[in-house]
Each structure stands twice: as structure tokens, then as C-alpha cells.
């Protein structure tokens, strides 16, 4: 995390990959009723929160209590909001039935809806890193932008995503 806060992408990626299975277990244990997809949405909320609040961790403090506090807050929050939404919406149920044909259990649903609301270029950049595993330089070359502009656009897009997701589960 220390390296991540200094901009070491590879170290940060390793850290997120390492904590994700643990977080997934916690979310699934608490939210069996949401189904695997709903749980994955909550997990993605937690990851976005960890990313968005990473500057509130003090480098000399142990990482685990901080991570745990962020995750617990987000899990409680998400289940409270989603519990309400699921009771009200029949669409979710229908979607769940369709998806029961064998969905990828690490695929979230909310993220697609949010990306759809983002402006196309921003969504494109987020996808470029995620789906295609591009580096900043590759994305910049393909979209004819400077690397700095890609970095700023990604940063802003992720912030917008957090805001949109919050509004969505309210």
C-alpha cells in the first residue's frame, strides 16, 4: 500500500488482488440473499471505497485495521441500501432468473449500468485498463491523447463512478 500511494501500479494491483478473495468471502458470508452477482457488486463498492479513501490511511499505521474499517462500513452501507431496493424491485428478480443460466460469478451488474451513464470517452478509458489490460501509454496512443490526459481522465472517471453508484443505491 505504501508503494501504491507513491504510484507503484504493479504493487497496488498485487495488493488489491490479494485482498479481494478475503473481502469476497466476507461479503458472501453476510449477503447470501443477494446472490453471487449482488455480492460482487458490493465487493466492487468496497474496492472503489478502498481506492477512493486510500489517502486516509497513515503510512506508519497498520494496514489491516484500516482496511477492515473501510470494508465493514461499505458492506453495512451497501446491504442496508440494497436490501431496500431488492424488496421494491421486481426487475432485479427477473434479471436474477435470467442470469441463473450460468453467469460469471465475478461479474458485477451495477458497473455496466454506471459505465453506460458515463460519457463515452471516460467509459472507454476505464474499459481500456480493465477489459483490455492496456497500459497508460497504449491507451494514450490509441485515443490520441497525452499520457497525462489519460491519467487525469481515468482519475476523474473513477470518481464519477463512485458518485453515480452512490446515487444508484440510494
Amino acid at each position, binding site marked *: 500500500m505504501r508503494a501504491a500511494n507513491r504510484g507503484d501500479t504493479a504493487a497496488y494491483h498485487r495488493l488489491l488482488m490479494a485482498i479481494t478473495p478475503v473481502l469476497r468471502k466476507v461479503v458472501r458470508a453476510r449477503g447470501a440473499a443477494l446472490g453471487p452477482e449482488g455480492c460482487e457488486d458490493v465487493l466492487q463498492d468496497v474496492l472503489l471505497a478502498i481506492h477512493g479513501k486510500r489517502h*486516509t490511511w497513515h503510512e506508519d*499505521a497498520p494496514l489491516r485495521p484500516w482496511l477492515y474499517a473501510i470494508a465493514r462500513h461499505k458492506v453495512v452501507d451497501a446491504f442496508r441500501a440494497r436490501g431496500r431496493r431488492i424488496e421494491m424491485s421486481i426487475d432485479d428478480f427477473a434479471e436474477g432468473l435470467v442470469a441463473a443460466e450460468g453467469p460469471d460469478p465475478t461479474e458485477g451488474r451495477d458497473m455496466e449500468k454506471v459505465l453506460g451513464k458515463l460519457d463515452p470517452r471516460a467509459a472507454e478509458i476505464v*474499459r481500456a*485498463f480493465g477489459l483490455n489490460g492496456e497500459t497508460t501509454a497504449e491507451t494514450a496512443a490509441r485515443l490520441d491523447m497525452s499520457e497525462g490526459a489519460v491519467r487525469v481522465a481515468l482519475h476523474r472517471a473513477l470518481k464519477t463512478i463512485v458518485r453515480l453508484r452512490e446515487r444508484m443505491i440510494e
Partner: protein
Amino acid sequence: MKTEELISALAADTIPQQPVTRQLGQAMLLASAASGTVFALFWGARPDIWAALGSLAVLKTLVPLILMGLSVAFALALAHPGVRHARRGIALGALIALAALGFLAAFGREGVAGLASALNSPSLITCLVSIPVLAAPVLAAMFWGLSSGAALRPRLTGAAAGLAAGGIAAAIYSIYCDKDMALFVLPAYSAAIGSVMLAGALLGPRLLKW
């Protein structure tokens, strides 16, 4: 989108975030300057300000400033998960208890009649209105700074933000206020700061959500 893909996108975002403390500090400085300017324009210092600052009346300025410092420290701890905030909360509570003791001592000496005559003055309304007005920009700055943090207890954090804003506003207002009796200052300032704290506690859950 798959979680692994999201992780790749997150890891690629290397733009560092500004520390909450710095963001809060900058906003507070700006807001305090704004409140100070408004104060200088519409209130102004009492004529005998230098004599007052040399007497025991300096406590009217000093104690709210200490309150502000302790509240900011407490709010900052609350906005950083994993940072222990109990000790800072106790320090803040001790200051409030000390002020309450001071009031009780003065009240015991002069009784209800003393309190009534001290509070029976137009200065009371001026005080109760001025401090919240001067506190408003600072409270906004506190919330703006703290919202980039991760408050796990938004109501308490909002209350601490209100105390800090009320404290600095009271310190500014004390330059104008020429009532120095403990039986006026303690209840009037406390009520004014308390109302700002209440506003902070009410706004906290809405403004510090994340």
C-alpha cells in the same frame, strides 16, 4: 464489468489524493479569513480591546481557540479509520467539563438573581446571533475538508466540526463583546457554540456520507 477488470482500472489510477489534513487546513484558513473580514467590516473591536486582552477577559478568546484546536484534532482522527480518537475525545470533554465547572462556581457565588441580571441585556441576542453567523463559513470549510476523509461516525464527526467552527467564531466575536462577567460569557457563548455543534451533528450524516 468483472472485479479483476475493475482492479486493473483502479491500479492504473496513480494520481495521488490530497491528505485530508492539508485540504482541511487550507479550507479553514480561507474560511477563518472570510469570517475575520466580515467581522472587521460589521462588528469591529471593542474600544478597550488591549486592556481586555491583558486582563482575565482574554480567556473569552483563548478558551474558544483551545476548543477549536481540540475539536479539529478530534474530527481529523474520526475521519481517518484506524486512528485512535478516544484520547482526543476525552481532552475535548475535559475542556467542556471545565467550562461547566466554571459556570457552576460562578452560579453558586451569585445565584439565580446574578445570572438573570447578567443575561438581561441586548448583548445576549447579539452574541447568540453573531457567533453562528461567523461560524457558518468555517463550518462549511470543515465539512468540505472532512468529506474527503472517511468518517465512520458522521454524526459525531459533524458535531466536532460544529464545535470547531463555533469555537473559532466565538474567539473572533470575543474581540467585539464587552461583557466580561463569567455568568454572561459562559452560558451565552456555550449556547451559541452549542447551536453550531447541533447544526454540525444534524448535517453530518448527510454531508459526510461516502
